[in-house]
């Protein structure tokens, strides 16, 4: 990366800071993508994630039946009409799983984005300004982190009524302290940089300093943890639904679908297995992608 920067600066013999930042960003992206492409597991993860997003978007078209349409044909074994069978109320399991992906994708992605949007500014402010602001924010984060994540999610769902929107809120809130800590750490490591002192001395506005120079340094850990967090969010959402604290029926959701037919598991195990497999494959995909991104963005590895 340094070589590329020097290559930009040296020939002209002038220091064009703005330009070198952009070139650096572009080349960083290229390097990252090249490294990512090399990892087979990351590419598999990416493929599954893209497939999942397509399935969630096109659920109405792809699902052979309505997910909430009850029929008298209950507990049918997997057959040509119903490839994954039907549940206790005669609803097609395949259609419910396809539609269930919508909830999982929505909750996973939106909760992660929302948590990032709220947590990053907190971490940046705490790390950049330091002093009592830093102390106040970090003590607040510590109190939140004193609760196990799942317990905190449960508590928030008890206070807010169980619903998809509130699950998103709960998962976003749970994510904030971890993200704030990570970002604050990154900011602290950059703040002492003389480069920042020089830019500050040039009387650039503080916001501009944060946006152009401090934030890009935090980008890598944010991207990696966000990708991995989508998987975690999906598992927590499914667990909340399993306990009856998440999205309410009859909306199809993988966690609740696994739970509601649990009593019939001896005779009809597939109804519990298929939603579970859906969760496993989805989370696995995001984890593989996140792992690949972590390796691709690791500055210690050579390109």
């Amino acid at each position, binding site marked *: 990366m340094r070589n590329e920067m020097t290559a930009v600066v040296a020939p002209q013999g002038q220091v064009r800071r703005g330009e070198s930042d952009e070139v650096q960003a572009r080349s960083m992206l290229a390097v990252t993508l090249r490294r990512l492409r090399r990892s087979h597991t990351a590419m598999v993860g990416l493929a599954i994630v893209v497939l999942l997003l397509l399935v969630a978007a096109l659920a109405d078209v792809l699902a052979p039946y309505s997910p909430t349409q009850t029929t008298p044909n209950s507990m049918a074994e997997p057959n040509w009409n119903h490839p994954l069978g039907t549940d206790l109320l005669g609803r097609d399991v395949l259609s419910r799983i396809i539609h269930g992906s919508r909830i999982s994708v929505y909750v996973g992605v939106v909760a992660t984005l929302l948590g990032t949007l709220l947590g990053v500014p907190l971490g940046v402010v705490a790390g950049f300004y330091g002093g009592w602001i830093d102390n106040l924010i970090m003590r607040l984060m510590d109190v939140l982190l*004193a609760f*196990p994540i799942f317990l905190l999610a449960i508590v928030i769902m*008890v*206070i807010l009524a169980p619903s998809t929107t509130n699950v998103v809120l709960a998962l976003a809130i749970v994510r904030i302290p971890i993200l704030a800590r990570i970002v604050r750490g990154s900011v602290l490591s950059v703040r002492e940089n003389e480069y920042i002192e020089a830019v500050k001395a040039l009387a650039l506005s503080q916001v501009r300093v944060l946006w152009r120079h401090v934030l890009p340094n935090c980008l890598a850990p944010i991207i990696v943890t966000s990708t991995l967090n989508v998987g975690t969010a999906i598992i927590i959402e499914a667990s909340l639904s399993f*306990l009856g604290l998440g999205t309410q029926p009859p909306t199809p959701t993988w*966690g609740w679908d696994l739970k509601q037919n649990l009593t019939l*598991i001896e005779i009809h195990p597939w109804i519990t297995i298929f939603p*579970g497999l859906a*969760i496993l494959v989805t*989370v696995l995909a995001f984890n593989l992608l996140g792992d690949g991104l972590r390796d691709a963005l690791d500055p210690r590895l050579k390109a």
Partner: protein
Amino acid sequence: MKEYILRRLVLLVPTVLGVTLLVFLMMRFIPGDPVSLLLGDYYTPEAAAVIHQQYGLDRPLHMQYVLWLKQVISGNWGYSIIAKRPILSDLARRLPITLELVILSMAFALLIAIPAGIIAALRPNSWHDYGAMTTAMIGVSIPEFFLGVLLILMFALAWDVLPAVGYVPLTQSASENLRHMVLPAVTLGLGRAALLTRLIRASMMEVIRLDYVTTARAKGVREWLVVLKHALKNALIPTVTVLGLQIGFLIGGAIVVESVFSVPGVGSFGITAIAMRDYPQVQAFVLLVALAFVLMNLLVDILYGFLDPRIKYDQPAS
């Protein structure tokens, strides 16, 4: 070392106070009149007056918190609406069961993760390595309740070697107790084992490359001694730093696992309380679990102090 422990204990106080404050406020955030929340279907004007006086509901909020905190410290953790008896006795009865589950799970996780991680690190890119890493990857991606259901399908329903649900107290029969705890502990432990295997492998691979390990080998120290005595001790330090977070996941997972396997511990107590809207029970449940987590983090911090000599010797001269 003593100063380190003392400092940790002192830092514990604001954390515990923060936790109690949040739990107290949590009950206030639940929509609805606090008195009817506390009494549920057993609302009568007389009972309401008692509650009003006991919790000081006409006083300012911070006074209510102090009153509530005093009660908690003196052992009054509220009355269950449904069961109509003090909550603390129920919790005290269930706590050892959950503790047994958590300890067994952690033991199982370490039993799997340490050898698997070491072997994977010593034979990188072998089938041991790929096998361990693939299993670990699946282990961190599978939700606990699904894994529990799969294990029930295999061991309880298909092969009928272990019971699916229920609990037998240790005092009644140790063997039956263990038979009933195997599936829940394995379910809970496998997820942690997966993550710990990846961690141990990564840190072992770093430590093995260090000069002091090469020196030990050159000195003729036997390989197993090099690995176990010299490398592993240092490789475990990063593992211990994330142990606190892992315990958090373990506690959260225990809530779900107790639900799947009908283990009569603190977790299933909390879930039932939430379903029945027994808010005094819910509050006591949240308080207990949060405080237990804080305490476990403290123990992990102290353990870390013992493992990492830099902490011991880094004390400022008094």
